[in-house]
């Protein structure tokens, strides 16, 4: 006879649970319990607390089941899938079982602590050895890297004002990558312009290298972006993410092959090349990249030191600010605000020299703004919302949420 279980997923995902025979007392314990009752020709297990919902046949023994609270062997145990569970005549028997399990868990915890101590000692020795090795390896002159991949630049179209973004998956593995080069055509750019490049290990989404080059450092020809040392032996596909933020009146032409920027990639042996690139973003290396196309929130800690609510006086201005927002990997920001008093207030979102311009609040007081992220904001940048009152009434504005998404648009 089949045993039907209401809230079967609850039973199967409970780390510890009890089944109660029809006449057994419920226990006042923080343990999920199901009572088994006769149900027509079969049996049905119903949660003692909470709604049961649809009943499904029990497919296998629940992994977290402690036992069956029952004075005798219930008839439905005859069809139990697998080894029969422990029969617990009363709460005392359950206590004994839990005590045994507790002792076992503590013994396992002791084993794990001892294993962890051994492993940590081994790990520390490994760290010390690695540090020694790096110091001694760094005494040698950097070895010239080997060219792994080189595109032939076909054209160098001038970039439009604002942000441009490309993503390119390369038929190369990340392991040992020593430098990335982009080819630039005409360049006339100043500090408002920035070029950002990330080398991503595609499978894990980890950043293997990131650079931010200010406009004044850009020149025609191959722009070599060195990793401080060859990339770790990650057997993963290399992908490049290239973002250019072009300031008004600046000129920057990026050489292309097909519809992607022409690149070179160079490899070196581990410990054969240590170089410090002035544009290297130490903070990004090794970080996991957020998933593509998913709007991500930020931890509550970003609001520490932030100005989240501001009052805007009539005909006056005010500012909301998050002092340090981690923007590594993101291409777009979205801020949501709400007018909590007054009316006729406008807002403008700003980050790393870029801004949305003034945006009106909606009738319901809701205010949403999106802004593409410039490489100048990598990896961490302040984000501000300028506020101004159009009339004499003014108002109060609360910064409700800020989210960001990976990708360039």
């Amino acid at each position: 006879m089949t045993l039907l279980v209401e809230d079967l997923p609850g039973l199967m995902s409970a780390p510890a649970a009890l089944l109660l025979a029809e006449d057994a007392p419920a226990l006042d314990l923080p343990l999920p319990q199901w009572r088994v009752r006769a149900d027509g020709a079969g049996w049905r297990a119903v949660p003692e607390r909470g709604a049961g919902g649809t009943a499904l046949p029990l497919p296998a023994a629940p992994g977290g089941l402690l036992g069956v609270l029952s004075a005798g062997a219930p008839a439905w145990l005859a069809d139990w899938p697998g080894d029969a569970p422990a029969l617990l005549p009363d709460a005392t028997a359950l206590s004994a079982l839990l005590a045994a399990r507790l002792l076992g868990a503590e013994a396992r915890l002791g084993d794990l602590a001892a294993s962890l101590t051994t492993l940590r000692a081994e790990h520390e020795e490994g760290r010390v050895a690695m540090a020694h090795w790096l110091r001694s390896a760094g005494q040698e002159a950097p070895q010239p890297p080997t060219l792994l991949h080189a595109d032939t630049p076909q054209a160098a179209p001038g970039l439009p004002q604002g942000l441009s973004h490309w993503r390119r998956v390369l038929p190369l593995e990340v392991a040992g990558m020593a430098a990335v080069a982009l080819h630039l055509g005409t360049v006339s750019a100043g500090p408002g312009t920035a070029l950002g490049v990330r080398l991503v290990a595609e499978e894990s989404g980890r950043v293997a290298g990131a650079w931010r080059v200010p406009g004044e450092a850009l020149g025609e020809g191959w722009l070599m972006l060195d990793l401080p040392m060859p990339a770790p032996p990650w057997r993963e596909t290399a992908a490049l993410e290239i973002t250019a933020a072009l300031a008004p009146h600046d000129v920057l032409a990026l050489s292309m092959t097909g519809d992607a920027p022409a690149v070179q990639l160079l490899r070196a042996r581990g410990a054969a090349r240590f170089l410090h690139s002035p544009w290297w973003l130490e903070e990004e290396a090794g970080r996991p990249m957020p998933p593509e196309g998913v709007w991500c929130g930020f931890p509550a800690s970003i609001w520490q030191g932030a100005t989240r609510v501001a009052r805007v006086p009539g005909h006056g201005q005010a500012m909301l600010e998050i002092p340090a927002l981690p923007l590594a990997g993101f291409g777009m920001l979205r801020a949501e605000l709400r007018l909590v008093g007054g009316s006729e207030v406008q807002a403008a979102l700003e980050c790393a020299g870029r801004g949305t311009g003034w945006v009106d609040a909606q009738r319901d007081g809701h205010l949403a703004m999106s802004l593409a992220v410039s490489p100048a904001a990598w990896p961490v940048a302040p984000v501000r919302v300028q506020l101004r009152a159009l009339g004499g009434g003014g108002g109060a504005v609360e910064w409700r949420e800020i989210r960001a998404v990976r990708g360039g648009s």
Partner: protein
Amino acid sequence: MMAAGEVTVACVIPAYGQPGLLPEALNSAMTQTLPGVAAVVVDDGCPFPETSAQARAAAARHPGRVHVLRQANGGLSAARNTGIDYALAAFPNLRAVYLLDADNRIEPHFLRRALDVLEQGGPGTGWAYPDIDSLGMEECSDTSGEFSLLLLMQDNFCEAGSLISRAMLEKGLRFDTSLRQGFEDAEFWLRAARAGFVGRHIPQSGFRYRRRAESMLADSERIRPVLQEELRRRNRELWHPASILRMEARELPRHALLPVGGTPAHVFMDPEEPGPPVPRAEFRAMLARAAADPASHHIPHVVMVAEPAALAALAANRMLHAAWWFGSVLLRHRRVAGMVLDESGDERISFRHAGGSLEDAQIIFLRGQELAETPEQLRRDLSNGDAWRMRLFLPGAPEVTGEATAEAQAELAMLGTPNGDAPPRPWRNVWRCARSRVADRLYASVGVGAPLPRLKQGRDIGIVQPLHSRGGVERVLLRQAEVLRRAGWTPHLFVSERADVTLLPGTRDTYETINLFPGFGPEGAPDPARAYFGAETAAYGHDPNSAEGLGLLFGMDAVLITHSLAGHALAARLRRFGVRCFMGLHLAERGAWNQPAGQAFSGLAYEHAYDGALVISEQLRRWCIGQGWPASKLILVPNAPGYDSQAVPVARGTPQRRLRALFLGRLDAQKGLERLTDTIRATQDFIDWRVAGKPVLGGAPPDFGVPVEPPADSARDLDALYGWADILFLPSRFEGVPLTILEAQRLGCVPLATDVGAVAEIVAHGQDGWLLPNDAQCTQAAVAALRALDADRSLLAGLSAAAIARLRGRGWDAMMRPFLERLDTP
């Protein structure tokens, strides 16, 4: 707490013996960037309590996301099935199930990417599979490219760690719990493919497969041949060569044609369905991709550079399929091969082949993969004459222009020039078989060589015969083939033992394709060590070249194998592929010392391999039963005249002219040529003689005292001969049911023939013809009979009228009815 309704992807993790590694697998599932991921841990009766403890700990840490089931040990497949069943039942909004082994891991974006691929893969997408990046023993294996079932049959590149759509699982597909030694995943994907689902590759997925020196996989690899055979056994339909052929056409077409003149290429399987044009630049790009990654990108195995006139000549002679088939066969012997088409000067097709230069070839064959990878080597082969050269004589061959060779050279030179835009090789290990070679490996795994590249359109029947000349047997088979065609069958001619086909009137109209065995093996040779009661059996049967013969024939629904030792050698294997095999028997011959000899005796050694046999006479049917053929396997198909006469039958009267006698047939010893000579010499004073025919089995004919006329082929010439003669003289030492007698009778020409074979079944002595003893008295009896007929012209007139009456209504359609009925009976 995750509610069951929030779960969209369930990671089913069978757990047995890996408590130390299980938390890693669980953690990788719990840290996916895709929302709605739950884990279903199936503790498969693991003897270590740590396993369930670890699973419970994970359940406590991830409320509502880790579901733990425990069952008695049933093996990996059973545990997966339990997890799948549970996930389908417990999670109402489930979209897919991922199979994660307890010692493997997935990177955080894995399931998001896998689900994207699965749900955007198009109709029929059942699962999404990753590249296989090993942990521990580092090795990264590429599995990219379009999904190919053929490739999957050759190499299981779909990891068990694949994401499976709910739709596929709801079709009831589960792992086979009887496969406990490994390859259960391969078997599962093959079954899924048979159910109409396809897989899709997940680029840059981030699947980490733990590879250790000893593992379940290492155990399976040790018995790989046994497990592979088991896979084939369980999937016979897939490994049927006809099924491989259909998949080859759909997934990895075998042929590419580059017509001389630089016009677009065509990629196809069946030369009669050449597919859409492929611009040359795109074809070169295909080559470049196949060079960079042969396992992910296909290039046809046989690339033909051909003059259109040569293809037209082949098509006109029904040789187009055979020519492409020869391409596959010849390319086994060299990287480059070619055909020189030469005018045969008469209605004949023949060939010779050997290593040699191709400067005058109208057709060049190049191995596709090597064309992609080493075009310079092929160019040198072509320049140096290191090629396989087939000289094909046929009517209507085009003139030699050298254009095909020049175009092939130019194409090879262009491909050999370094090109900076060559596509890159994948950085992962390319371990799978090159796509261009997959199909041939699969054919080979079932003992079959290159397939006749014809996609089935109806009911095909192969007429297999050792030679195709002017003999009576060939004429009978041609007439039978005509009837088969009228009845809805498509007949194909296969000549097994002679590289020579005489095109009789009707050959090209009747046979859909004309094919010749290639002559690399002992096609017609007997095996002296394996005679059956002294009768010849085929050496071809245990020669590796017989695989090519199977390749030619496996696509037929039925074959009629007549007097072909090579055909007999193939029959049992063809029957295993579902081809219905019938033997054609015409006579039980005698040798030079009157010993039992010939095809009927050899056929006894192969009776077991056939579904039935066609016998042309009641006498032969009884002979076969006597020799042990089951009577119900024998189908009596009596002969009828070998051609459609245009003449009106005229009973011979009593003209006041000299009697006219005719010998018509092969000028071979079997026909009693010395009896003919002696009879002519003894009767020339009162009879006008004509002799028409030529030797078939070799040797010059004797001097008959009259000129020998060439054999007649056309209905008009035959009508003229039978209309001229009063008497057909046939002093054969053995015969079956000679067509000439039937043809002569039909026009009132009286047969005077030895009483051999089943001649007595078609000649009633003294009523509609005259029978002679088949012994030393034959000539004397013949001369006496001729004198009697000359003297008594009314006797001649009576025999003539009776002969006409006997043949009235005796046509092939009526004779073939029993065979057609047998063919229509499953």
